[in-house]
């Protein structure tokens, strides 16, 4: 069995300027914070980030002093590491709108259910996602919308599959083979992203021996996981 365990720094070393990166987590819940920190430390630039949201931005006091750091993809945003963000919601991180309005970052907003299914399609070999969501809206003109179709008198948008060079995810319990269990609401996009990237790196809160995870509790089978980073409870 190949040893998949690496450090967050080694994970960041693989991800270069210009890479496309899926970042797990929903409003940073479940996000791989250690890998985010290592990417900021490396000062990677020009990323295309695919994430449910822009994470949380930093919080400032009345004097403009940062009193709480960003979390999730918000760390990459704050560091100006992101050239393009494909997400469903950015309202809880003001820095996204700031950089977008300054023309520093392109933001491509996609309905949440569509984006989830588009990532799943990317990882599952499907040619697209046929959803009624977004019909009659600006989504019809999205660069990720392939065409509009009418089937049995109902209108649908055919959305493109989404893939990436990397997926960086946060797992609750990971065994040494790479099987992942995501507890509670930390599943979100992570089970889907694990299937849709060339290289998948999971930051584990807890690492266990092979056989310790109930086979029915595994939400990402080990064959999808290339590397494991020891994270710890955040």
């Amino acid at each position, binding site marked *: 069995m190949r040893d998949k365990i690496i450090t967050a720094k080694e994970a960041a070393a693989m991800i270069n300027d210009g890479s496309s990166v899926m970042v797990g987590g*929903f*409003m*940073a*819940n*479940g996000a791989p914070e250690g890998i985010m920190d290592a990417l900021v430390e490396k000062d990677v630039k020009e990323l295309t980030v695919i994430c*449910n*949201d822009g994470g*949380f931005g930093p919080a400032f006091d009345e004097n403009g002093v940062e009193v709480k750091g960003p979390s999730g993809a918000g760390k990459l945003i704050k560091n100006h590491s992101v050239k393009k963000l494909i*997400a*469903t*919601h*950015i*309202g*809880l991180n003001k820095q996204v*709108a700031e950089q*977008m309005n300054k023309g520093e970052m392109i*933001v491509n*907003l996609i*309905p*949440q*259910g*569509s984006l*989830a*299914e588009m990532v*799943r399609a990317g990882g599952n070999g499907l040619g697209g996602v046929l*959803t*009624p*969501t*977004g*019909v*009659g*809206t*600006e*989504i019809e003109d999205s660069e990720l919308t392939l065409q509009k179709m009418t089937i049995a008198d109902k209108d649908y948008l055919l959305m493109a599959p989404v893939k990436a060079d990397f997926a960086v995810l946060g797992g*609750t319990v990971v065994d040494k083979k790479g099987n992942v269990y*995501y*507890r*509670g*609401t*930390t*599943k*979100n*996009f*992570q*089970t*889907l992203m694990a299937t849709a990237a060339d290289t998948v790196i999971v930051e584990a809160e807890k690492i266990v021996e092979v056989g310790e995870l109930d086979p029915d509790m595994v*939400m990402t089978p080990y064959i999808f996981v290339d590397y494991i980073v020891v994270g710890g409870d*955040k």
Partner: protein
Amino acid sequence: MADVKQIIAHRVAQELQDGYVVNLGIGLPTLVANYVPEGIDISLQSENGIIGMAGVAKGADIDKDIVNSGGVNVNVYPGATFFDSAVSFGIIRGGHVDMTVLGALQVDQEGNIASHIIPGKMAPGMGGAMDLITGAKKVIVAMQHTQKGAPKLFEKISLPATGLKAVNMIVTEMGVIEITDKGFELRELAPGVTVEDIQAATAAPVHVTGEIKEMCMPEE
């Protein structure tokens, strides 16, 4: 007298039926959960992956792995379940959510709704709203009838649409309007509000085609 938001939330809650699966948008819609009628058992869905969500968690109840779609720690009821975003939106898109309650910037008489963007001013993203509006069996808009006196109900929305022909009912502090083939049909008026009042606050015809009931109010 009860706060306007509480009045709206209380009235929306009367639409709940036993066994309903319900998704409540952030803000005012969240308050609906406080007024679930006696004997009615509903299940709250949170689009980030919960069926059976309870209220906001505090203190020792906080479980870092359990948040709502705003990233806030919440509690869950016994029998609740967690799942990924594909399953969650399969539930929503597949018609398994009986009712969703959300706010709006504009609604028109065809049931078109604008709720997610003001071009040049605000573009937080649609999140799960477009899927909910498209997939939920019943879409209720819960909001104040006007925005600083300006109407929010129109013949035709002018802001970018979040969903087409989707809204079934609008509940405001002034009354209850259903959207039918005729357009806005008035069903209930709040105490002291007249048909003329609600028409004056609405930028489209408000039709009166049947009995108008008095909108119920929360107990003090």
